[in-house]
């Protein structure tokens, strides 16, 4: 089927009065950027919709790309014809012919006359188009309630749109429309999904990754950079903060309280993330916690850990099952990277049976006993490297890539 145009409908945000125009603009720019590889397409913006004229590009690939644009609720591939009765009938006929419909398909026509000067009312058009198709296709049965095929005919002054598919898209809010937060990115399966969920809700997400070289390898760090790069495909660009965590982390090992190491570590991570949030003007911290998944994610642990920051902690995955998280991770393209087996600092020095009910009083007293903990935390923030990642670039990174593009 050769389509002329894709009709994109906006999601829930169009209800948001004053911000609507800004939101729509943001989606428009996002759509424009993802369609750059298709030079023939042209875009038009209208209340609650974007029209993507394909001008000969095939529809399949752009649809796949557009389904991932935040703020778009659904996509319909459309055939365009003149707003004249004859042309509408002929085009509808051709459309169904190419569709290769099966025996006894239920159908109805839903015409909408947007251009009131058109000579036939919506009701009359339903009748005209419907009877024309019934005459020509024996396998069609009319069904007004739940038709398998609901042919929409939208008559406008300049042209008429004919379509039936409504492909659900990712929805959510335009990127960057709901403020900024820091996200703890570990390199596992969950945190990239948490990042994507936050971004879908319009949150600008800066990623914070903790590494403990030489206990963690350079490859673990690079894996996180690769993950952030995938995420930048959704966000346009991603700021990634790489925090050297070795000193802080090793300071917890000699305390004779190995079962509390995760709790202590996570609390320090939150403190560092909070300091970075202040510096970057972020108003919350996002984590990939999912209730009960591991020892640090029991309710008791969340309680003891969460008290280390005053910023709101957002946990988009908190009530999701692992399978749901994995399925999103596969969908957004982070899963294969996440399962690479490089140890990150969350699994270092972890005892066989970490505390699932950490005692806050003991945790706090250990923290007090490490007199230079605060200095180490401030020092880690100072030595944090920040890089900006884009889907195609290598970012303004200090990590030299051995991959010289000239070789390929």
């Amino acid at each position: 089927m050769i389509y002329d145009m894709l009709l994109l409908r906006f999601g829930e945000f169009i209800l948001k009065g004053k911000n609507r125009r800004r939101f729509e603009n943001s989606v428009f720019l996002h759509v424009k950027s993802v369609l750059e590889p298709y030079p023939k397409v042209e875009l038009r913006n209208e209340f609650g919709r974007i029209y993507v004229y394909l001008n000969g590009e095939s529809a399949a690939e752009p649809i796949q790309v557009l389904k991932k644009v935040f703020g778009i609720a659904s996509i319909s591939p459309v055939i365009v014809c003149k707003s004249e009765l004859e042309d509408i009938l002929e085009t509808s006929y051709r459309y169904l012919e190419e569709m290769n419909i099966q025996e006894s398909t239920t159908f109805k026509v839903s015409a909408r006359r947007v251009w009131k000067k058109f000579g036939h009312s919506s009701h009359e058009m339903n009748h005209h188009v419907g009877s024309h198709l019934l005459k020509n296709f024996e396998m069609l049965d009319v069904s007004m309630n739940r038709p398998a095929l609901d042919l929409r005919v939208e008559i406008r002054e300049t042209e008429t749109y004919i379509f039936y598919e409504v492909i659900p898209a990712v929805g959510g809010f335009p990127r960057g429309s709901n403020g900024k937060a820091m996200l703890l990115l570990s390199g596992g399966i969950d945190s990239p999904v948490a990042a994507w969920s936050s971004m879908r809700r319009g949150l600008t997400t800066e990623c914070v990754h903790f590494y403990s070289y030489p206990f963690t390898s350079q490859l673990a760090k690079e894996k996180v950079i690769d993950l952030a790069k995938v995420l930048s495909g959704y966000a346009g660009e991603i700021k990634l903060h790489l925090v050297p965590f070795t000193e802080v982390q090793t300071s917890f090992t000699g305390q004779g309280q190995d079962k509390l190491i995760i709790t202590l570590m996570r609390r320090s991570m939150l403190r560092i993330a909070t300091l970075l949030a202040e510096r970057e003007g972020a108003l919350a911290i996002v984590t990939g916690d999912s209730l009960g998944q591991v020892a640090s994610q029991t309710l008791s642990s969340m309680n003891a850990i969460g008290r280390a920051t005053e910023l709101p902690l957002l946990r988009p995955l908190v009530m999701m099952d692992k399978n749901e998280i994995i399925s999103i991770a596969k969908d957004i393209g982070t899963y294969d990277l996440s399962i690479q087996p490089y140890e990150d600092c969350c699994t270092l020095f972890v005892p066989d049976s970490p505390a699932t009910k950490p005692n806050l009083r003991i945790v706090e007293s250990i923290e007090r006993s490490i007199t230079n903990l605060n200095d180490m935390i401030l020092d880690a923030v100072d030595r944090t490297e920040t890089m900006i990642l884009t889907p195609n670039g290598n970012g303004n990174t200090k990590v030299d890539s051995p991959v010289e593009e000239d070789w390929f």
Partner: protein
Amino acid sequence: MIYWDHAASTPPYEDVIRTLTEVMDKHYGNPSSIHQLGGDSVKLIKRSREVCANALHVKPSEIIFTSGATEANNLAIKGAALQYMSRGKHLITSMVEHASVYESFLQLQQWGFEVTFLPVDSQGCVSLESITAAIRKDTILVSIMHVNNEMGAIQPIDAIGQEIKRCNALTLFHVDGVQGFGKLPVDLKTWSVDLYTLSAHKFRGPKGIGLLYVREGLKLMPLLTGGSQESGFRAGTENTPHLVAMAKAMRMTSEQQPIFTKNVSIQRDRIFGFIRDIKGLHLHSNENGAPHIVQFSFPGMKSEVLMHTLELQGMLVSTRSACSSKQTEPSRVLISMGLSHEEASSGIRISLGDSHTEEEISQLELALRKAVEQLYPLLEKGRNDR
């Protein structure tokens, strides 16, 4: 000296040679080492895999690097046969495959597999009916080449793929794509191909490197065991510089394919024209074949004699396929295509690259006319004519 043997091997792109040298110089680290130099090699290999996958419109995880087409064909055929022998022990291939395919099947035959060798018509093509008739419930693999290396015949891969899957959805389809890539469009998904072989030196990359596309979800019994490189399909330290160089050649070749097909077909047709015109020569390729291969014979004159006569005039052509040209038997492939014994033992192949000039083709014509004129009186037939 003008080189007319591009189906045997191609001159590497200058950029490929430069890339190969630079990567060899800088990135000698073993990709399995976990220090930085090893890590750098891993990244280069990853990027190479992406570039190769892009050129075929498949996923990077579906590309297995090998030492060349012979290994890739062996891995595809024996690997699939051994992996899936519990489903059945029947295999299908054609009479005109490359030796690395044909001999693999002969070996499997010795190991107790049953192999059906499909005949071809005078155009060199396998018929769909013969596929339909040969496929059974216990057929685990069909292997058919895309373009025949001796004749240039193009197999109807698209239709064959669909027919195989229609007859038995579990039967795997392997395509030796060595002579087709860069010469014709390739569309593995539409063709329902499960396994696909390429060799870098046939598309202006280096020798000693190739790849096998293995459709996601398929398993193959590895032929080389050892380390866990190539997802366990093929042990052995990755050949980083050659991989990068192959990726580059593959990208450049696939970008230039439409132009290659168009321009080289025109030159081929010109060559067809004068071969048809020269008395004593029989043209065996035709316009339906690949753009770069011209097979003809000079019945009564052994291939080598004409080849060397042309060589004296600076024209390098080929007798049979290079891999088996030292054998003395006439070509199995040409005989299968219905050539007489006399034609098959006097077969000559001219194969084109993308840089031949019109002037060079005129020189080839002259050389060929001169050679035939010289040799014609020596033919038995020629002697009788006198």
